[in-house]
C-alpha cells in the first residue's frame, strides 16, 4: 500500500487548531465582536499563507503518497487515532478550501451592517470552525476521524443556514440536516462494520491499515461499499438524492452556499475516490456501471432542471448537480485520465460555482431578489456584475481558456475510452450547459435599461471577483501544476477499477492530453 511520510513539523494540526482557536476566541471574547470581519479575514488569510508555507515541505514529485503526515493515539479502545496526511488530491482540496474562505468573508463583509454585533461575529466564528473541519476532512487518514468530521460539519452548516438564511431558512436547515444525517448514519453502520471486518487493533481505523484488508463475502463488501457510497452520493448530490441542495441554496446566504457547494459537497466525490475505491475495490468495480448510468442521469437531470429554474440560487444548485454527474462519471470510469479530470474538476468547479454564487449574492444585495423575472437590462446598471457573471458562467460551461474546459474534456475523453455511449450522452450535458447559463444571462442582464440606479461593484467586491476570475484563468490556461499534483493520485486510485487497459499507457495518454489542452487553450 501507499507509504506515509511523517511531517517534520505538525503543519496540518497547526492549521486546524488555529482555525478552531480563532473561532472560539471570537465567540467568547466580547470586545472582538466589533472587529469580527477583519479578524476572521486576517485569520483565514493567515491560514492560507501558512498552508502555502507548509507546501514547501510537500514533495510534488511524490504526490501520490501521503505526506505531511502526523499520527497521534486518540481512543485506542475503539481503534481510532488522530491521523492527518495529504496526497496530491488533499493538497488541492485544502488549497481550494483555504482560498475560498477569505473570499467568502470578504464578500460577506457588509452583510450584517446595522445588525447586532454578535450576529456578524457568530457568522465569522461558525465559518472559521467550518474551515477547521474542512481542512480536517481532507487531511484525515483515519476512517473514524473522517466520519466524525463528516458528521460534525453539519452543526456549523445547520447554524449558518438556520440563522443567516432567507425567509424559509428553518425548513431549509432542517432538510439539509436530515438528508445529511441519514446519509451519515448509514455510513456509520459501514464504519462500524469496516472495523469489525478489518484487521482491528488500536490503529484499526487507519486508512493504510484498512485498505485491501477488509474481509467478507462479496455481498458484505457490496453492502459496505453502498453504506459509504450512499452517504457520499447524498453529499455530492447525485440524482435521485439531490433534492436537498436546491432547497438549501435557495435559503442559505451566498457565502455559505459557496462553501457548501464549492467545498463541502466535494467531500462526497473526495470520499468516493479516497475511501470507496481503496477500501472496497471489488464492489466498486461491480457497481461502477450502475453508478455511471446514474451519473449521466444526474448530468442531464441537473441540466434540464437548471433550465427550468426561476430562482438563480436554485439554478446554480442544479448546474452543480449536473457537474457532479461529470465528476462521478469520471471517478467510476476506471480511466486515470478521466479520474485526473475529476479531481481537477473538483477544484475548477469550486472556483467557478463559488464565483457564480457570490456574484448572484452581489446582484441580490442590489436587486433584493434571487428571481430571474425581477431583473432585466442590468448590464447597463451594473456592467461589472454582468461581466463577472458571464465569465463565471462560461467557466462553468467549459469554455476553452477557462477553468471548466480542461477537466470536462479529460473526463469525456477518458470516459469515451471506457464507454463511448455514456460519453456521447454526457456530451449533451455540455450543450444544456450553454442554455442554462446564457439564457438566464440574457433575461437578467440584456434588454432595455430599467429605471433604477444601483452602484456597481465596489473595491472590496472587485477584489473578490478579480481573484476568482484570476483563478479561473489560471486553471484554464495553466492547469499543468494542478494536473501534475493530482495525476499520481488518480492513477493509483483508478487502477482498482481498471479492466484491461494498462495504467502506464493511460497515464502517458493523460500527459499528452493535458499538454494538448494547455497548448490549445493558450492559443
Amino acid at each position, binding site marked *: 500500500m501507499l507509504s506515509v511520510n511523517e511531517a517534520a513539523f505538525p503543519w496540518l494540526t497547526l492549521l486546524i487548531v488555529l482555525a478552531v482557536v480563532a473561532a472560539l476566541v471570537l465567540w467568547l471574547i466580547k470586545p472582538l465582536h466589533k472587529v469580527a470581519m477583519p479578524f476572521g479575514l486576517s485569520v483565514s488569510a493567515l491560514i492560507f499563507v501558512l498552508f502555502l508555507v507548509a507546501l514547501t515541505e510537500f514533495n510534488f514529485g511524490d504526490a501520490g503518497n501521503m505526506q505531511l503526515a502526523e499520527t497521534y493515539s486518540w481512543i485506542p*479502545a475503539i481503534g481510532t487515532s488522530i491521523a492527518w496526511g495529504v496526497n496530491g488530491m488533499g493538497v488541492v482540496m485544502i488549497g481550494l478550501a483555504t482560498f475560498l474562505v477569505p473570499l467568502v468573508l470578504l464578500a460577506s463583509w457588509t452583510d450584517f451592517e446595522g445588525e447586532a454585533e454578535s450576529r456578524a461575529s457568530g457568522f465569522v466564528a461558525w465559518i472559521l470552525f467550518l474551515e477547521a473541519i474542512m481542512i480536517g476532512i481532507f487531511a484525515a487518514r483515519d476512517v473514524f476521524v473522517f466520519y466524525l*468530521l463528516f*458528521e460534525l460539519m453539519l452543526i456549523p452548516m*445547520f447554524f449558518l443556514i438556520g*440563522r443567516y438564511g432567507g425567509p424559509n431558512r428553518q425548513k431549509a436547515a432542517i432538510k439539509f440536516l436530515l438528508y445529511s444525517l441519514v446519509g451519515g448514519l448509514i455510513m456509520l453502520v459501514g464504519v462500524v462494520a469496516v472495523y469489525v471486518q478489518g484487521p482491528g487493533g488500536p490503529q484499526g481505523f487507519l486508512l493504510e491499515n484498512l485498505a485491501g484488508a477488509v474481509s467478507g463475502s462479496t455481498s458484505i463488501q457490496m453492502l459496505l461499499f453502498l453504506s459509504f457510497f450512499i452517504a457520499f452520493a447524498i453529499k455530492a448530490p447525485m440524482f435521485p438524492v439531490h433534492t436537498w441542495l436546491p432547497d438549501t441554496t435557495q435559503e442559505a446566504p451566498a457565502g455559505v452556499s459557496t462553501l457548501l457547494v464549492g467545498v463541502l459537497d466535494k467531500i462526497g466525490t473526495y470520499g468516493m475516490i479516497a475511501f470507496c475505491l481503496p477500501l472496497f475495490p471489488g464492489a466498486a468495480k461491480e457497481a461502477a456501471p450502475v453508478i455511471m448510468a446514474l451519473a449521466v442521469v444526474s448530468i442531464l437531470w441537473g441540466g434540464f432542471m437548471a433550465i427550468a429554474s426561476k430562482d438563480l440560487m436554485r439554478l446554480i444548485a442544479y448546474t452543480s448537480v449536473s457537474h457532479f454527474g461529470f465528476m462521478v462519471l469520471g471517478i467510476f470510469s476506471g480511466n486515470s485520465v478521466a479520474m485526473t479530470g475529476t479531481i481537477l474538476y473538483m477544484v475548477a468547479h469550486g472556483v467557478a460555482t463559488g464565483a457564480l454564487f457570490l456574484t448572484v449574492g452581489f446582484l441580490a444585495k442590489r436587486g433584493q431578489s434571487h428571481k430571474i423575472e425581477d431583473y432585466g437590462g442590468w448590464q447597463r446598471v451594473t456592467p461589472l456584475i454582468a461581466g463577472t457573471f458571464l465569465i463565471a458562467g462560461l467557466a462553468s460551461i467549459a469554455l476553452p481558456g477557462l477553468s471548466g474546459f480542461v477537466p470536462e474534456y479529460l473526463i469525456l475523453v477518458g470516459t469515451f475510452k471506457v464507454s463511448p455511449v455514456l460519453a456521447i450522452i454526457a456530451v449533451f450535458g455540455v450543450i444544456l450547459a450553454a442554455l442554462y447559463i446564457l439564457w438566464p444571462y440574457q433575461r437578467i442582464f440584456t434588454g432595455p435599461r430599467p429605471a433604477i440606479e444601483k452602484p456597481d461593484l465596489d473595491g472590496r467586491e472587485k477584489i473578490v471577483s478579480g481573484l476568482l476570475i484570476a483563478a479561473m484563468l489560471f486553471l484554464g490556461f495553466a492547469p499543468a501544476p494542478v494536473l501534475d499534483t493530482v495525476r499520481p493520485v488518480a492513477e493509483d486510485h483508478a487502477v482498482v477499477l481498471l479492466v484491461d487497459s494498462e495504467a502506464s499507457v493511460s497515464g502517458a495518454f493523460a500527459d499528452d492530453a493535458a499538454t494538448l489542452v494547455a497548448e490549445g487553450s493558450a492559443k
Partner: protein
Amino acid sequence: MIDWAALTPTLIILGSAILGVVFEAFVPRGARRPVQVVLAMIAVASSLVTVVWRWTVVSADGPTSIAMAPDGSTNVGTFVEDGAVLAFQAIILMCALVALLVIADRTETGEGSFAASAATQPGSTDEREATVANLQQTEIFPLMLFSLGGMLSFGAAGDLLTLFVSLEVLSLPLYVLTATARRRRALSQEAALKYFVLGAFSSGFFLMGSALLYGFSGSLTYRGIATKVLSGTGMDMLLIAGVTLVLVGLLFKVGAAPFHAWTPDTYQGAPTPITGYMAAGTKIAAFAAMLRFLYVIGTGVQWELTPVLWTVIIVTMCIGTVMGLLQTDIKRMLAYSSIAHAGFILIGVSSFSQQGISATAFYLLAYGIATVGAFGIVTLVRETDAEGNILGEATALEKWQGLGKTNPLLAICMTVFLLSFAGIPLTSGFIGKFEAFTAGVAAGNAVLVVLAVLASAATAFFYFRLITYMFFRDPVEGSQTVASEGFSIVAIIACAIITILLGVFPQPVLDFLGEAAVFML
C-alpha cells in the same frame, strides 16, 4: 459470614436514609432542609469514594461473593461484588450526585419543585396555608436516598429474591416522590398512581417468572439456576417462560415497549428534578440488573430469547421515535426519547458479549448525565402570567422559542445535551452509540443496527426542532428563565462539561469499563 466492607457503598446510602428519617423527627423545622441537603450530599459523595476504594480492592483480589455460609466455604449467592457491579454503582452515584443538586435547588424566593406539604389536598385551604407559610417537604431527601440504595443493590443482586427486594426498595420511594410536584398536583398524583399500579403489575410478572425459575432449578440464586441450565433438567419450557417473565419485569423498569406506557405520563407528572433522577437512575440500575440476569442465566436460552429481544428492540425504537415526533411537551418528548434510547441500549445488551457490557455501561453514563442536565434546564424555564409573575415550568415547546437570545448559557447547555442524545460527534452520546452499534454488528445483528441508525436520524428531527426553536426564533411572551440558589446551574454546567469530555477523551472511561465488564457467577 458477610463481607461487610464490600457492602459499604450501599450501607452508607441506606444508613444515611435512616438517619434522615430520624432527623425529620428531631431536628427543628427551620434547620431541617439544610441538614437534609448536606447529609444527602455527603452520603452520595462518600458512597462514590467508597466505590472507588472497593474497585482498588476488587481489581487486586478479584470479585467476591459478599455472603458466605458461616464456615466460609460455600457461596450463598445473594450479593456479589465484581467489576461490573462497581462500574454501574459508580455511574448511578455520579448521576445521583448531579441529580441531587437539581433536587435540592430552589428559586431565589425559596420555591422548590416540591409541594409545600404533599399530604394536603390539591386546591384546599390547607395547601394554601402550607404554601404561604413556605413549608418544606424535606422527606424527599431520605426518600431519594432509599431509592438510591435500592438502585445500588439492584445491580449487585445475585439471587432473584434479593433482586426483587431491591426492585421494591428502589421503586416504592419513587412512587411517592412522583406524587409530590408543587404545581399541577392532580396530574402529579395521577402519574404516581399510574406508575404504582403498572409497577405492581410488572412486579407480578417478575415474581411469577422467579417462581417458574425456582420450579425449573430448585434454587433462587443465579449460581444455582445457571448450574441447572448447564446440566439441564428436562423442563426447558419452565426456563424459557421464567426468564421471559423476569425479563418483562426488568423491561418495564427500563421503559422498553410494549411496557413503556407509564413513561410519558410519569415523566410529565413527576416533579422535574425527580423525573431527571429516575430517568437516569432507574434505567441504569435496571439495565445493570438485566445484564447480569441475561448474561448469567439468559445465555442458556439465548437462542430462544433472540426473537423476543429483537421484537422488543424494534418496537421500542419505532414507538420512541414516532411518538417523539408528535410531542409538543418537552417532558413528554424527553420521555419518548428515553424510550428510543432504551431500544438503542438493548442492542448492546442483546449482543451477549463482553463488549456489550462495556458499551451498555458507557451509553448509560452518557445518557444519564445528559438526561439529568436536560431536566435540570427544564426546571429553570418558567411560564409567566400577564403581570410577569413567574409560574410553573414552561413545558410547551413553543415557550422555548428564543431561549438562545434570552439565556444563551442554558440554551447552549441544552444544545449540548440534545446533540448528545442525537449522537453527534464530540459528545458522549456519539461514543455511546458507536460502542453499542459496534457490539451489535460484531454480534451479527447488523439489521438491528441499520434500523437503529434510521431511528436515530428520525429522533434527530425532534432534537433539532427544539434547537431551531431556541436559536432561530424570536423570544415569545409568557416565558422566562429563573435564577435559582445556584445548585441547578452548577449541575447543568457540570453535566455539559462531562458530556463533551466523554465525547472527546473517552479513553480512560473505556479502559476502565473494558477492565470492569466481567460478571462473576
